[in-house]
């Protein structure tokens, strides 16, 4: 009886795995029906994926949202507006091959500083917070601009890139709103510490590579 039950469970598991494997094939079929420049190959999805493929970038962008949420209005929306805009300036510099020194160091430092600000519950004046994220946004934009793929539709790629960056900030803000509750404050500050730690790891890597 028990053996039969185990056998049924095993069958169900195999069936579930088979269905999942089949589902995994479906996106490929779907792509066949959509213009490739929209989905990939330098289209919207390529741009959407680009900012989330590097952990160092992701944590810094989430940290901007967290910090904005802690600082409250107007920083909660000024910082997420400023970061993508100034990051675009950095990306344009990268596209135009204008060199920016010590990129790896700057990106790692951004995670350390922004994560540290969140963890320490730092509340500087808005202008200081703005200048901090503006400085680091250049470093985050430049490598994205310098490492662009061959394009299908450039404006779609740009749209995906900007939307992904903005949504990472929104994710940070959403998590940062937990700050209103004591347990949430602990969680948000712990996340800030985690982001700073990730930044430290990437700083060691950057130093190892000679910045």
């Amino acid at each position, binding site marked *: 009886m028990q053996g039969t039950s185990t056998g049924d469970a095993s069958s169900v598991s195999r069936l579930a795995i088979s269905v999942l494997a089949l589902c995994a094939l479906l996106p490929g079929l779907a792509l066949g029906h959509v213009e490739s420049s929209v989905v990939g190959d330098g289209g919207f999805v390529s741009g959407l994926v680009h900012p989330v493929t590097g952990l160092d970038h992701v944590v810094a962008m989430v940290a901007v949202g967290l910090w904005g949420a802690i600082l409250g209005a107007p920083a909660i*929306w000024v910082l*997420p*507006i400023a970061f*993508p*805009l100034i*990051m*675009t*300036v950095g*990306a*344009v510099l990268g*596209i*135009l091959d204008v060199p920016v020194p010590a990129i790896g160091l700057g990106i790692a430092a951004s995670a350390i500083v922004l994560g540290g600000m969140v963890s320490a519950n730092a509340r500087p004046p808005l202008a200081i917070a703005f200048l901090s994220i503006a400085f680091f946004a250049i470093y985050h934009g430049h490598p994205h*601009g310098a490492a662009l793929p061959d*394009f299908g539709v*450039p*404006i*779609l*790629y*740009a*749209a995906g*890139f*900007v*939307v992904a960056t*903005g949504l990472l900030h929104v994710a940070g803000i959403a998590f940062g709103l937990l700050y209103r509750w004591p347990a949430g404050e602990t969680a948000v500050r712990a996340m800030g510490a985690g982001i700073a730690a990730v930044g430290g790891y990437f700083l060691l890597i950057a130093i190892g590579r000679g910045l």
Partner: protein
Amino acid sequence: MATRAVFLLVVGAATFSPAASAHGNADTLHRILDGAVLFFTAIEFLLPVLLVALLARYHGLRSVIIQVAALGVGLLIALMGLPVAGDPSVVGLYARGYLIALGLLVLFNLRLPAGLVPVMVLATGTLIGLEAGSAVIDDPATGFAPAVGFLSSAICLYLSAALIASRYTEGWQHIAMRVVASWIVAIAALDIAFMIVGSG
């Protein structure tokens, strides 16, 4: 009144559906549909119309009729053969620069004088029409049917966006519009850089 106008436009747009075209002159209707679809599948046309509708949100629904007329006139002037001075590809650069200007106006929450808004809408229509140009009317022999579809789509989007933007007046809703405007500015700036690198 604006709601009725949107309703009539939607009903009009519904007549362009493939099912409806089976009962009429299929070629003409398909060309109209092609023009309508072209507008909605290219964000370089969607974004300026969206932004200029957001920019006009402070001026009430009555002025929307004048703005729609300005958009239509601007598009028609450009689509019906306004000559482009110099390299046609330069139009894209101007269009993106104008998109940045529109985005910054929305981002900084500037209220333009009521008389200036139709001028901005007219300029938007003209630039979109110039950029769309040959994509809408690739062969003069096919007539201007695609231009009719393109124009209808642009007016539908403008009316819808203006209506929605004028109804949502809470502070956070305006902030959301300003955030969207900042993202559009970033997209346009990146696209300009791509154009410069591509042409260089």
